[in-house]
């Protein structure tokens, strides 16, 4: 299908965007890469009165590392993240994750700001933001706000953004060199939305986790930073400890049932991912015995 008719404004500045959003509120939609917005419009799931195209706002594009903070402009494309030497060096988890975001032609248009504002619970980047402890930078009528990722995602396609807000950037702490990561997702076809996925970052010292952050996606109405990770920190990991952590994880999940998988299948796969993640990060193949997908 084709989108219904709408008015179009090519924004000239962030102030111009805010002005338009302030006037139109929920009747306007911000067009960034358009890889989620345009399918929804073509399917007539949404029909905004005004589309505000921010594609020409060069100031919202780019990756900068300053001290211990990486700032990524909202218009930075997935393809840019994938090719960036700064991301590879300072946020390698994000690089691994982006390789799983859709397909090359989509990654050439889709942007990080668009993906986070869309907040699809099955998409990779929101979970990475939780794992990496990102701050989302938002401009609104009252000025700039900085929102911690864990406060940002509030439900299926729901965030802390109001209809008058524009997501302008993301800030990530530089990943310490002593840190390691794990990223994996199960999908029917490479690049499709995940059935279940895990973005993890850890510090391993003497065979134990000194820190472990587990960002699961497609396991509920929003990405989940699993509290059960704490059961694995500072202790010697045995199959029994891991099994207890899996049980604790299960209690945190509220997976949806859809045409891709049942809720029970998602619960099973989340535990498989946790087991594989721990086994991989600790280089302990013995822990993985029996964890089949």
């Amino acid at each position, binding site marked *: 299908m084709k989108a219904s008719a709408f008015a179009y404004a090519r924004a000239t500045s962030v102030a111009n965007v805010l002005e338009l959003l302030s006037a139109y509120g929920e009747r306007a939609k911000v067009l960034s890469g358009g890889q989620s917005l*345009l399918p929804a419009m073509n399917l007539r799931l949404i029909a905004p009165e005004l589309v505000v195209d921010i594609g020409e706002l060069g100031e919202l594009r780019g990756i900068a590392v300053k001290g211990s903070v990486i700032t990524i402009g909202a218009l930075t494309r997935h*393809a840019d993240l994938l090719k960036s030497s700064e991301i590879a060096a300072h946020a390698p988890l994000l690089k691994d994750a982006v390789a799983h975001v859709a397909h090359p*032609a989509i990654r*050439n*248009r889709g942007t990080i700001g668009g993906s986070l504002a869309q907040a699809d619970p099955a998409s990779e980047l929101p979970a990475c933001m939780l794992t990496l402890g990102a701050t989302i930078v938002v401009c609104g009528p009252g000025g700039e706000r900085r929102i911690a990722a864990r406060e940002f995602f509030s439900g299926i396609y729901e965030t802390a953004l109001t209809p008058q807000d524009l997501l302008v950037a993301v800030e990530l702490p530089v990943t310490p060199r002593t840190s390691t990561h794990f990223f994996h997702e199960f999908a029917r076809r490479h690049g499709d939305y995940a059935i279940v996925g895990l973005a993890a970052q850890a510090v391993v010292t003497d065979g134990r986790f000194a820190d472990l952050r587990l960002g699961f996606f497609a396991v509920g109405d929003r990405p989940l930073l699993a509290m059960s990770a704490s059961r694995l920190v500072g202790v010697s990991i045995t199959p029994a400890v891991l099994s207890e952590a899996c049980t604790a994880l299960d209690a945190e999940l509220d997976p949806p049932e859809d045409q891709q998988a049942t809720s029970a299948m998602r619960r099973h796969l989340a535990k498989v991912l946790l087991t594989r993640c721990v086994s991989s990060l600790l280089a302990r193949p013995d822990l993985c015995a029996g964890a089949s997908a």
Partner: protein
Amino acid sequence: MTGAVAISLSVNGERVDASVLPRLNLVDFLREHLKLTGTHIGCEHGVCGACTVRVNGDIVRSCLLLAVQTHNASVETIEGLSDNGEIADLQSAFRERNALQCGFCTPGMLMAAQDLLKQSRSPDREQIREHLSGNYCRCTGYQAIVDAIETTARARTGRLP
């Protein structure tokens, strides 16, 4: 703001000036306004890859791009790549290996394949499959398409099959 918008862009190296409604997708602009029907329309929501074209050198879905967004851009379609000979060897390999049957996906497949071969001189079969993961083919089962791309990559780097 509600009416047609003036755009100026380059399509296959030729300057095009037009006035388009905001809701017009690039693929419909190419097919209906410019009569460049080599770019196909499949799913219209970014899943099938049949409408793949190049914008400013990058492959994109032309069903997920508004014509108004291509103002000042350089668009290349299958007609452009075909006429200038850029993919003559790839097209020939597709033909020889029977890498198409109905041909509906072929323009998009060729755009995606050429994009890969520009970035990677000797991709393995897994990399080829990954790069084509966003392009559906319902006839061939993909084996012949992967074969044709692999053969072209080998020939371009002077390696014999």
